[in-house]
């Protein structure tokens, strides 16, 4: 028991290495994101539009992609205006 206890118990207690790994991944991600954010958004907008166009005819200008980067939460907002008489292209 004491062998298992010390073996597993120690693993449970050492939260610092987990903290370090989480931070390293997060910051690596955030650092790359900051520099070319607008580039990322343009790419996202083009690709999302491409997917939507396969099914619905939408105007290039009617798609808005926005990224709100907060301190703890970032929000990706995609706004697509669909014309009223439009129907999914697969149906008659």
């Amino acid at each position: 028991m004491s062998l298992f206890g010390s073996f597993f118990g120690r693993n449970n207690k050492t939260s610092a290495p987990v903290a370090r790994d989480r931070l390293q991944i997060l910051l690596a991600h955030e650092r790359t994101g900051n520099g070319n954010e607008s580039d990322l958004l343009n790419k996202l907008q083009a690709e999302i539009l491409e997917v939507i166009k396969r099914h619905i005819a939408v105007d290039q200008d009617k798609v808005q992609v926005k990224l709100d980067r907060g301190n703890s939460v970032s929000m990706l907002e995609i706004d697509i205006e669909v014309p009223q008489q439009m129907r999914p292209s697969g149906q008659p």
Partner: protein
Amino acid sequence: MAKVLVVTSGKGGVGKTTSTAALGAALAQTGQNVVVVDFDVGLRNLDLVMGAERRVVFDLINVIQGDAKLSQALIRDKRIETLSILPASQTRDKDALTAEGVASVMAQLREKFDWVICDSPAGIERGAQLAMHHADHAIVVTNPEVSSVRDSDRIIGMLDSTTKKAQDGGKIEKHLLLTRYDPARAARGEMLRIEDVLEILSIPLLGIIPESEEVLRASNLGAPVTLSSPDSPPARAYAEAARRLEGEKLEVTVPVERKGLLARLFKGKS
């Protein structure tokens, strides 16, 4: 030529004001002319930590708006002759802190003092940017805790992009001050290690301030910890950090767990 220092952090409550007061007092004790400036308009606290709260008549905003002269707003410390404080306003609109006004006050302070230490508000908003804008040297205060480290990373990014020094093509000097470090918890693997924080943030270390009751005691008394209990571990750590700021090459003391004799004996046997 004065050296302008900003004490900054992303997250609040990590010890910026405590560190500003302690470092300011430690530098002033060596005979240099030091002013500590509170940039946290709306939530001023530096005057309280320095024990000058009842002597505030005019503040930074009064000076910026031309309602008072700089000399009227500066409060001379009662304990150390070469230490002054420029308090922040609590009641006024914080938008009164204009870029031109700050530039003019900083230029005047540079002429009067050897060290201008700016206590920044937390975060990445305008107030923090104004506080760091004119700095030659930044001290990033961080706790060994994930949210504090992450936010420090953003502040370091801001220091490298939005300060005057960076915009003029130069490089702002940056140092890390690790506060509330608990060696016992770090030894047990419950707290981020110093090496980990340094590796993640990759800026040089100015000092490690151990977690201590003395810090709260000092702020209760309204005295920088370097004055209220100069022999305590945090005061010693701040005093050493101040010497490093003055260019002294001094090995950083890593706080060690202070154990009782019994605990040490038992550890030796097992």
